């Protein structure tokens, strides 16, 4: 379980958000939504301490990640897989080596075992044919899928997806959404999906965290979000959904 408690973050004088608290249960898929620039990516980078807050805690099974020594922190980070917004593949090595990369450094597996695991991973994202290709030659959607294979190759407990479908066509977005669902169900991974794509939220998430106005504005299940109307305290959420031109009731 991940508990986010009273997080506050600012860059110099610019407050990103404050007093952000929520929990993520084991096996749950949470979508963190909000407009561009509201600090969604900044928030998830706190979950594995890639960024440190001004105040607050992130407890991973009761342990405050910001208090860990660097060696212990690195161990903790190995429990996370991250799909970065730009995929963050290593351009100097090919697709196969990108996926094999964590296995070579963090396990004692033989070359045969590594090859088998990597090809399985690439098979899960339908990219076995691209194993020898240079990552610079891959399309945006293929790069995301390679990055997903790399993020899951060590079977992490938590998987963070930072804007997994941004810049992709609807069909490729659906393929990525299907993969997110498949990883959550088949590998029992706790998933945190940062997105401003309401369609993705409805497809993959169970719970929604909505950031706006430098605070956590709304939190609830997808069913509660669907049942929302344009009144009371969830008005900002409904405005966001309306602005995203998605008819939620449909």
């Amino acid at each position, binding site marked *: 379980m991940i508990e986010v408690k009273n997080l506050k973050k600012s860059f110099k004088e610019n407050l990103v958000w404050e007093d952000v608290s929520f929990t993520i249960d084991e096996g749950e898929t949470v979508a963190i939504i909000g407009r561009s620039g509201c600090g969604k990516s900044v928030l998830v980078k706190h979950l*594995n301490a*890639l960024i440190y807050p001004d105040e607050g805690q992130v407890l991973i099974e009761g342990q405050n990640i910001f208090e860990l020594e660097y060696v212990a922190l690195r161990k903790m*980070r190995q429990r996370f897989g*991250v799909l*970065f917004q730009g995929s*963050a*593949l290593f351009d100097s090595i090919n697709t196969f080596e990108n996926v094999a*990369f964590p296995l070579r*450094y963090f396990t004692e597996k033989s070359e045969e075992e590594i090859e088998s695991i990597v090809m399985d991973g690439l098979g899960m994202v339908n990219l076995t044919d691209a194993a020898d290709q240079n990552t610079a030659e891959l399309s945006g959607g293929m790069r995301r899928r390679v990055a997903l294979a790399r993020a899951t190759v*060590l079977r992490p407990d938590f998987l963070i997806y930072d804007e997994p479908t941004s810049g992709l066509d609807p069909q490729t977005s659906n393929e990525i959404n299907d993969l997110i669902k498949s990883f959550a169900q088949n590998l029992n991974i706790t998933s945190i999906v940062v997105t401003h794509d309401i369609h993705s939220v409805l497809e993959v998430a169970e719970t929604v965290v909505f950031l706006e106005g430098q605070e956590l504005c709304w939190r609830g299940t997808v069913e509660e979000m669907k049942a929302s109307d344009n009144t009371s305290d969830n008005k900002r959420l409904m405005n966001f959904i309306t602005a995203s031109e998605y008819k939620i009731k449909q």
Partner: protein
Amino acid sequence: MNALEKLGKYALFLYRALRSSYDVKIYKNNLVNELIKVGYESLPIVLLTGAFTGAVMTLQTSYQLDIAFVPRSIIGAIVSQSILIELGAVITSLVLAGKVGARIATELGTMRVSEQVDALESMGFNSVAFLVVPRVLAGVIMFPVLYIVASVSGVGGGLLAGVLSGAVPSSEFMLGAREFFFPWDVLFGLLKAFVFGFVITSVSCYKGYYATGGAEGVGNSTTQATVLSCIYILLADFVLAAVIL
């Protein structure tokens, strides 16, 4: 950020690199690659720089000492000693600040802004051990080697220019070079090359590792890495001469 804060951040960065240097398994492959890139791939430019520096020095010294009763062997002495004490290390390092330093800052800067450094950290890697330590080690190992190459090609270039221009016969040139050869000069040159190798690679790693702001940010980091490396080389050269000579 003021100058003192920047210095502190650089010192902490070096401290982290030093603490990470025990993690040989993480960086051994990268170290081999870097030794090749910093050393082997720099050989052509180092040979060229050394040879032309020596050649120009011979011609200019010959012109300046075109006086009766001054033995021509003095040209060999001046050229070889200047190259061993000063030019072999300094000129080579200034050239390599552009080649090696710019490459390192651009590579790390691009990795930073494309989130590849974050990807390494998020996998549980020590990114400093993986990216910075092998580059700095390659610098301090290969720069002394390149200094020797530059010095040999410099003396060779000077000798060739002297013979071809008729300024000094080869026997006279070598006589002067041998008479004024002191092993300490070579040691001093090696020390300089070691220090300059450290300065260039560590400053460039620092600038690249903390690059921000996309393509423009990487460009700025690369420019700063090259300019600062050149300034620090000249500064370190002065300090070493003042303290040791």
